[in-house]
């Protein structure tokens, strides 16, 4: 399945875009998504150990399955307040 991952903060600067297109097998997990990004988009690799994944409006766990029908976002360490 093809997904447009939402990017934020420094990840947008690295990509030069607000989204990153990825092609994942059905049933892939959050961990597998991050591994795939590290392999296919090595420019993100230094950031990935600190990146969380959000599915819709919730943070996901490493073993969660990536759904095809919700927004998926890569969340670098936050700095609000």
């Amino acid at each position, binding site marked *: 399945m093809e997904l447009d991952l*939402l990017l*934020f*903060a*420094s990840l947008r*600067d690295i990509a030069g875009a607000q989204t990153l297109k990825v092609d994942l097998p059905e049933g892939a997990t959050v961990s597998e998504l991050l591994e795939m990004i590290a392999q296919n988009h090595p420019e993100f690799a230094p950031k990935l150990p*600190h990146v969380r994944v*959000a599915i*819709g*409006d*919730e*943070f996901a766990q490493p073993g969660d399955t990536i759904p095809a029908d919700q*927004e998926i*976002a890569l*969340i*670098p*360490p*936050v*700095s*609000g*307040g």
Partner: protein
Amino acid sequence: MMEPNYEAQLTREAIDTEKARSWLDDPGCGAIHIFCGVVRDLNRSKTVTAIEYHAHEPLALRSLEKVVAGLVDDGATKALAIHRLGMLKVGETSILLGVSLPHRKEGFGLLERGMIEIKSEVAVWKHEHYRDDAPEWIEGS
């Protein structure tokens, strides 16, 4: 129907502290605690001119709601969080967190805990603008 006793907002308008205080009013509360985070003019030895706040809005709002709901669960009569987004100048309020309670003592701890949670869990990022350098993303650790 009872009014909700917690509220979370993301806004691009200036945060109205008096309006927030009124929302926190409760006849059973003798203490209203309000913390305002404000854009300051110096960070990591660089002169800051403005900070642009970006968010993953649905995720940030959901996390902010969880923070204030948790403060009510742990003793606040009411809890309110408002995070500003967009470009803010030095001196403008970026975050307001408030709680009301019958007595003051627990309120200080609740505000501090709430701010720690906001700074680690709410999907908002600062893009700092400097007088002498190119803008930089600030990311937590």
